[in-house]
């Protein structure tokens, strides 16, 4: 018996992978890549014109933030940036499906969800610039801190949901994670806990086809949404580039969870259009053709076509939106460049809720030491 007979090897990339992006019968879709509204037996959506426009605005603003951040990284203003390019619909659709007091636990790439939860994009830039480690108040935004250790936050989300069960809250939780993360023990333990306690948590997997350089077949040999069935709760795949479908599927799942039906897994089938981060070079491991194929499924384009075709928005709406996005980008750029570095002794401030005596001593000695240079300079 050899190895590799029964799974797709990296060498087969072109042949095999391109098939996976064809319209997927397993996947919920409400808007075709061309912007046509289609029906789905299980999921319906009907929003006001303003709401449709609002979703499109979110997509545009979020992409603009992302593009600006990538540029700022190139200019040396950020140490690194993890782009969400291509995943805007998955994030905005799920982010907007949440009720205000639902709670989200993100990875490091959920800038679109952060936008929906009113986290200042500048704070996100600070994290990648190296001026903070997150630092927002999760309670103020119902949005957890960015979590870099893959999969950890799915357990936090599950525990938070167990807390809701215990304090009589009426809300639900979303745990965001990636296709790569699905392999981590923690994520599977979160499935176990959520199932056993019937906790109101939605596991939202953005399957963007890649975990840095590793294609999906290094993590699973069946579609990821089917993982849930092994743990005894429902899983569904949604077209992750279709903001309406993502919104509808997530909203239904959150409603289910809130009404005591327990966990759900949503696999948002999408694509990481950019590099893993600005430090990555995807040309080393994937083909341009794949990218081209996915470009035809762009989440913004299809929503724009929909708005046009359905005449839900005037041209002025699009123009104003562009202007608004330009403003945002300009302000962000300026504010980022002006973002001050933290002061050295701040690193001692939040290691603990108090500062234990030995640590205070360490801080004070370091303060004195730093002061001695100032004196030297002064002298």
């Amino acid at each position, binding site marked *: 018996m050899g190895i590799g007979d029964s799974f797709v090897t990296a060498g087969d990339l072109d042949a095999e992978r391109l098939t996976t992006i064809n319209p997927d019968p397993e996947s919920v879709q409400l808007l075709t890549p061309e912007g046509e509204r289609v029906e789905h037996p299980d999921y319906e959506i009907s929003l006001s014109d303003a709401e449709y426009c609002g979703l499109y605005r979110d997509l545009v603003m979020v992409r603009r933030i992302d593009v600006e951040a990538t540029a700022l990284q190139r200019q040396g203003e950020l140490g690194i940036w993890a782009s969400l390019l291509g995943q805007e619909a998955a994030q905005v659709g799920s982010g907007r499906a949440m009720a205000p007091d639902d709670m989200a636990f993100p990875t490091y790439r959920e800038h679109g969800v952060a936008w929906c939860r009113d986290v200042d994009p500048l704070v996100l830039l600070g994290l990648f610039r190296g001026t903070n480690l997150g630092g927002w108040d999760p309670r103020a935004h119902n949005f957890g801190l960015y979590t870099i250790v893959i999969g950890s936050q799915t357990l936090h989300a599950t525990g938070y949901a167990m807390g809701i069960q215990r304090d009589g809250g009426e809300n639900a939780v979303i745990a965001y994670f990636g296709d790569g993360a699905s392999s981590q023990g923690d994520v599977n*333990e979160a499935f*176990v806990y959520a199932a056993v306690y019937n906790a109101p948590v939605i596991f939202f997997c953005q399957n963007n086809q890649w975990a840095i350089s590793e294609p999906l077949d290094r993590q699973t040999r069946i579609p990821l949404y089917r993982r849930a069935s092994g743990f005894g709760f429902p899983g569904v795949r949604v077209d992750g580039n279709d903001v309406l479908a993502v919104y509808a599927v997530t909203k239904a799942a959150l409603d289910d969870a809130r009404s005591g039906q327990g966990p759900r897994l949503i696999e948002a089938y999408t694509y990481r259009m950019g590099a893993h981060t600005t430090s990555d070079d995807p040309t080393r491991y994937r083909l341009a053709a794949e990218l081209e194929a996915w470009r035809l499924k762009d989440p913004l384009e299809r929503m724009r076509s929909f708005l046009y075709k359905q005449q839900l928005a005037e041209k002025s709406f699009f123009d104003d939106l562009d202007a608004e996005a330009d403003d945002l980008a300009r302000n962000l750029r300026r504010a980022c460049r002006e973002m001050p570095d933290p002061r050295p002794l701040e690193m001692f401030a939040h290691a603990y*809720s108090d500062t234990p*005596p030995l640590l205070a001593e360490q801080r004070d000695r370091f303060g004195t030491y730093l002061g001695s240079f100032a004196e030297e300079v002064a002298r």
Partner: protein
Amino acid sequence: MTILTLAKGLNEGLRRAMEDDPKVVIMGEDVGKLGGVFRVTDGLQKDFGEDRVIDTPLAESGIVGTAIGLAMRGFRPVCEIQFDGFVFPAFDQIVTQLAKMHNRSAGNVPMPVTIRIPFGGGIGAVEHHSESPEALFCHTAGLKVVACSNSVDAYFMVQQAIAADDPVIFFEPKRRYWEKADVDTARTPDALHTARVIRPGADVTVLAYGPMVKTAMDAATAAEADGHDLEVIDLRTLSPLDMTTVLDSVRHTGRCVVVHEAPGNVGLGAEVAARVTEDAFYSLEAPVLRVTGFDTPYPASRLEEDYLPDLDRVLDAVDRSLAF
């Protein structure tokens, strides 16, 4: 005053904490109906219900990971790790999440999670049931680490740990679970992060914590017969250390022996030795000597009496210290 075993002291302390604050929840493997394999949580599920005393799936990363989530929701989880050797599946959640969450949030998110770990050897158990991993947690900034050695501290310290807003790794000396002491629950306890001189003496300072405190006291009694007057300190707080108490002692004795069951290499004894030497260099008549487990995996239990520091090895170190 009631006479309580150390295990019962913990049990009463946990009960008190649950009565005082409805947000305190207990979680772990077998903590419910069984009351834990050491019965430390005995009767608590019966009285506080399954929502507050939670039998978890057999997955330690899950225990700590969900505890973090519960804490973010406003609860004060007390996690039981069944034995020292089974904390490692939870190590990632403890080190990368629990220890760092408060700092990551710039102080916005308190992390009042207590992790109880029965630790140490001497009970004739199989592999992984007799270890002393405290040094690993002490090295991890963002955690506080304590160890109790008797029923009184057990009762009070577990309540103090639960009341603290930082994560506390709470070590319990499993082979002393059945030792008894009078507990006056009305007393005002010492602050959590303080060491305590439990036997004043003039010749050599002996530092110990958890199960080794009794061993150190026994050694002090035995040393008396040889005319050596040992000062014994129960460290109680392992991180942060209470160096004030330690240095005060060493400055007047000039000699120091530190005792623990964990392997010596890069253990807590090394830290104590390094600090004492740095801060009391001119007071030291001898180097700080360490009496510890050997730098091998914990052996099969028929060898544990040889592996573990005992009265004789403490006395041997005292003699070597005095010989400098």
